[in-house]
């Protein structure tokens, strides 16, 4: 499915060196490590928002290392939900799929009836659910999650982590979560890796 071979990136310091990863279809992997160890940069390199110093990324056998982010078909959920303030929830979701059945997509993340809500009226957890629904509507080959639960309180982050995992498993969508929270990583992923 997704193969990362010898990924290296230096930015002021050596962030990661010769990093390898194999992600199978439907598998969920969590990568843990302390703040500043390069977890976010790793995800940004995989989806193409940052360039690698060395290494190759293969998706379904195709080398996507030099592809533009918009051509890779990889989804990313940022640490804070990136929702467009000039669009309501429904129009934010339509960026993922113009033809989408919005009520169904919202029902999947437990937000049925939120279609017309302005995004600045959503709580942090609700915002992340909308971002997740939108990312899934785009039908990504792989979904990358950059500490999406870190800004929520413990109870809510655990609940959301479980909900998201169930949803990804139901859809068979492979995912990579990076987090500094080891208990969330164990709860969410099939495999937990650690980088220092």
């Amino acid at each position, binding site marked *: 499915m997704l193969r990362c071979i010898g990924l290296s990136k230096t930015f002021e310091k050596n962030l990661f060196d010769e990093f390898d990863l194999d992600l199978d279809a439907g598998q969920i992997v969590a990568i843990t490590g302390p703040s500043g160890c390069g977890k976010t940069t790793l995800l940004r390199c995989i989806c193409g928002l940052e360039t690698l110093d060395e290494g190759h990324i293969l998706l379904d056998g195709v080398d996507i290392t030099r592809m533009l982010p918009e051509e890779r078909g990889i*989804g990313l959920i940022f640490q*804070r939900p990136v929702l*467009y303030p000039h669009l309501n929830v429904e129009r934010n979701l339509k960026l993922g799929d113009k033809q989408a059945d919005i009520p169904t997509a919202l029902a999947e993340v437990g937000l049925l009836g939120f279609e017309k809500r302005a995004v600045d009226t959503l709580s942090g957890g609700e915002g992340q659910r909308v971002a997740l629904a939108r990312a899934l509507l785009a039908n990504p080959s792989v979904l990358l999650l950059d500490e999406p639960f870190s800004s929520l309180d413990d109870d809510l982050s655990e609940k959301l982590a479980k909900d998201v995992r169930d949803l990804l498993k139901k859809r068979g969508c492979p995912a990579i979560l990076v987090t500094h929270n080891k208990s969330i990583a164990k709860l969410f992923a099939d495999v937990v890796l650690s980088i220092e």
Partner: protein
Amino acid sequence: MKTKLVAYVAVTTYSLLIVIPLLLAVDRLVWVAGFDVTSWISSLDANYISKGVFQFTVMQAVFSSLATLAIGIPIAWQLGRYKWPFQNIIRSLLTMPFVMPSIVAAMGFLHLMGDNALDIRNDSTTWLWVLIIAHAWFNLSLVIRFCEPVLSTLDPSLEEQLRLLPEGRTKFGRFRHLWFPLLIPSIAAAACMTFVFSFTSFALVKWITLGEKTLESMMADIGSSAGIPGYMISKNEVILGSSLIQFTVLLFSLWLMTWLQNRRQSLLPTANEKIVKKNNNAGWLVILPAICFAVIPLATLIVSSFRVTETTVDGSRTYWSTEGWSYAFSATNSLPSGWDALYNSIGYALICLTIALPLGWILAQTISELEGDSPRLARALDVFTMLPFAVSSAMIGLGVMLGMIKINPEFFYSLWLTPVIAHIMITTPFVVRIILPAMRSLDAKYDECGQTLGMSRTKRFFLIKLPMLRGSILIAAIFTIAMSLGEFGASWVVTRNSDWTTLPVMIDSIRAFPYNEPLVPPAANAVSSVLMLIALFLFISSEKFRPKRDGGMF
């Protein structure tokens, strides 16, 4: 109680200075022309002086706004999205035209496009394009100042996220779903202000067109024969009709701009511009021509002030000389010296500052305090202080001139201070608009903390409020001086005595001399250069105090 009294005195003074002359002028015009609004409006088409003027005014303002956007948006994009060496200097150079007095811009373009340089204005089909380009030059900084802050501080994750979604995979998709909706309020607000400034443009229209008139320049031209009972009644009707149309158009444009500014995305997620901006060497293809566009008309002025062209029967010869400067700064039978104009300008600017700044401060303070207790009254006072924005400088000049005739013509015609009334009318609303947002953004906790420390109101004012608002006060002060020094439309209408001649009026007077006098262009450009250098000095001083990311006009 004492504070309320100060507020009452300020509002009354403002009304007397600003509203009363206008009301008296309207009263005088109506007294001569009669109260028949339909006849005022229809006189515009019926009178040969004003026929087609409204249409031309709208047409040139619309084209000027479109040209300003076409030139300004790519520049704002490059400045906002990419890193540049000496970025502050580049930004200052590109925003500098807006603070230049309009008569300076007119002289710069007149020379640059005239027969001594590019020679593209002499053809009667091309002067309109020169006017439109000159308006675009003048208003370029509005587009930059309105759009650049949105571009340079928008959290890059918004675009990054969109690149990973199907609807944002193409550049067009990202433009459609992100940049266009986010920028459109800023672009529209800049277009509104450009339209207002082009609609009321006076000096540029007067000097660049070949006798074509806008409502503003027409009112200025015929104003001297208005307000006299039984004399040229139709001109009074034309002035009333033009003023009414101009007031309505300006009021609507300003309302639209305020509405658009309120719609600007204040809740947009922002990031430090160091994170947002990237390198883009290809962008020099936009930035370098833009810098040339901003600087060349002004540099031309200085150079041409030292160039004298003499025409004889044997042909013409051009040589380097300081004769233009000597001519401009020596008194003649028909003109005061440049020194006298400079002293008048500085005198008027300083008097204007001592009245407009405290008056504007007290009005801003009153509005700010009323916003808590009586928001409606605060809003009413806010709108009241903005009212002069809907009145152009020629209309203000006419207001002062006709208003003072109504009160006591002999007294006012001999009073050196008369032009100051017009300058105060024009600058006070700007002072309010600069200081009020700063007052609003000042956290009330600072004052409350001072109260809990036992400080008196006066002590809190001097130790807390004044130092914290220092930047805005200095910008307002510099802006007041700059506007008064460069004010042309109202001064041109009001000046009835050569002892009142200011630098802009003097430039106009010199340039109006017969063109075959070889020292006319260099002398006019010499005075323009002096005015330009003063404006430049004031602009550089104000840039030091301007918040970088304010995203407004000032």
